[in-house]
């Protein structure tokens, strides 16, 4: 009898322990920090990154130009950024366009809540600088950036001279149709920035290159002709008709890739890219400069040295009667009170993310 009670008592105690041990399994959790491994070979990482994520410069929509007609129709949904000199801006600009120079455009965009604009439109005089800026912004992750095709010259005849003065037929001696052999593959350029992660590297590269004076005139090219590795960036059939003497044919949207001909471009020395109007080549040059190439674009492309042939072959000649519109201009200092106010007030949602500490090791520490 005594034993019996004894056991019951022990059992109850056991049950108690059982219950308590089973509720005791509270999960103890502490805040942790993500460790992002540092990017070791930055230039190679950038090339790999571009080839992995669709390679915007070789995408079908490249070079991301948008006609003035479209802009006229959809102005309300677009963020218009005018990158011309302030004097020119005062002389006349599109209603709602905000004057931001190339140098400060990245910092201007950063705090904005960009996606509520259907597109960011970059405006300049001829469309070439805009294509360059657009290319760099695209690389940084602004997937809705576009350049206004042919620039303000196409918007209003008051500015058409920017383009009209750019066309010409000098230097017939420099045009031929001899196929140049494809150069051998070589190395990629290399660079190191203080950036620790991809986005930081991209931003540092972009900030550095976006203000670069990347385009040269045909006169300038001719006087230093030997210094340049010349890339002809249009279809082969047209290359066989005429191109700059000694220019290498690179297939548009196919050749500037790690998997194809990118490494045949010399990593050291000047590289010149040209196309019909200078806009596509500007975009390509933006891409190449980010990768560390010393690349330049030929201003106004083939329009600048073989205009008559461009007209005869329909190679995108700039014909004022076709391209220039007479859309309204706003004159004066006051930009777009309405739109700039909106743009400046809305903050980027990123600022509200509560990121727990993310550790980004200093590259200097891990460098070997």
């Amino acid at each position: 009898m005594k034993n019996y009670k004894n056991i019951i008592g022990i059992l109850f105690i056991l049950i108690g322990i059982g219950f308590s041990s089973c509720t005791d399994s509270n999960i103890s959790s502490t805040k942790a920090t993500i460790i992002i491994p540092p990017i070791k070979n930055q230039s190679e990482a950038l090339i790999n990154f571009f080839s992995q994520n669709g390679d915007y410069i070789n995408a079908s929509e490249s070079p991301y130009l948008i006609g003035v007609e479209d802009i006229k129709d959809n102005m309300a949904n677009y963020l218009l950024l005018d990158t011309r000199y302030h004097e020119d801006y005062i002389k006349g600009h599109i209603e709602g366009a905000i004057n931001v120079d190339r140098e400060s455009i990245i910092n201007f965009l950063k705090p904005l809540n960009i996606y509520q604009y259907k597109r960011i439109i970059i405006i300049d005089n001829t469309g070439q600088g805009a294509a360059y800026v657009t290319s760099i912004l695209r690389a940084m992750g602004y997937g809705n950036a576009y350049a206004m095709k042919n620039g303000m010259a196409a918007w209003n005849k008051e500015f058409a001279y920017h383009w009209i003065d750019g066309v010409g037929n000098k230097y017939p001696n420099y045009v031929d149709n001899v196929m140049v052999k494809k150069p051998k593959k070589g190395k990629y350029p290399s660079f190191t920035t203080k950036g620790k992660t991809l986005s930081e590297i991209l931003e540092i590269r972009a900030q550095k290159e976006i203000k670069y004076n990347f385009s040269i005139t045909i006169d300038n090219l001719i006087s230093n002709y030997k210094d340049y590795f010349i890339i002809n960036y249009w279809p082969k059939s047209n290359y066989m008709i005429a191109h700059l003497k000694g220019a290498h044919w690179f297939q548009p949207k196919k050749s500037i890739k790690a998997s194809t001909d990118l490494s045949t471009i010399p990593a050291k020395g000047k590289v010149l890219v040209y196309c019909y109007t200078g806009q596509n080549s500007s975009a390509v040059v933006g891409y190449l400069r980010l990768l560390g190439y010393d690349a330049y674009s030929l201003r106004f492309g083939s329009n600048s040295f073989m205009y008559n042939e461009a007209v005869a072959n329909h190679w995108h000649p700039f014909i004022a009667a076709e391209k220039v519109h007479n859309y309204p201009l706003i004159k004066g200092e006051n930009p777009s009170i309405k739109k700039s106010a909106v743009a400046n007030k809305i903050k980027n949602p990123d600022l509200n993310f509560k990121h727990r500490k993310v550790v980004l090791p200093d590259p200097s520490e891990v460098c070997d």
Partner: protein
Amino acid sequence: MKRYLIIYLVGLLALSSCNTKQDIRFKLSPEEAAQEANSGSYVISPELLGDIYYSMDKSSNYQFIDLRTPLLYDNGHLKGAINIPFTALSHNHNCETFISQKHINIIYGESTEQVIFAGFLLQQLGIQNYFIILGDYDFIENNIIKHYNVLSAPYNPEIAQYNYAKIVKETAGSQNYSGGGKTAKPTLHIKRRKKAAAGGGCD
């Protein structure tokens, strides 16, 4: 002796039932959870996700968790992600991985809502070493992997993306709604018998 046996069995049952039962319990009561709901979701921005994704390394201390169905997972998922379907989350083994403290879990799913469910659940369990990625997998695929649109893609954290009052004002319409000022007007909340299943719901 019979009584002794019965009690013994009852005791065993109690012990065993306790062992097979899920040990996972909420750390926060609903009231506490409501208090902390605003402060506790750890959202990764697309830009940071890009940085993580493009520096993927085996030495990293995080683990992607894909909450979608196995079928969707098989069709494509983030490099290195493991699949724990949301519907099977409560299965014992999944539960363990889900609340595991070995890695920092970075969770994504088929919709923003699903991921917030998972994140808030972890928060209520008292787990702290996790991050969530808003948007669905398509968002990640289209704006980080296939194209790098991290700065312009419409990511959706809980913040007003628009100036609503202004937009309503600008939208031509009949309501002539003048913005705020409305105080919580008492509505009818007399409990009546349910008439019919309420509509809504669109999964």
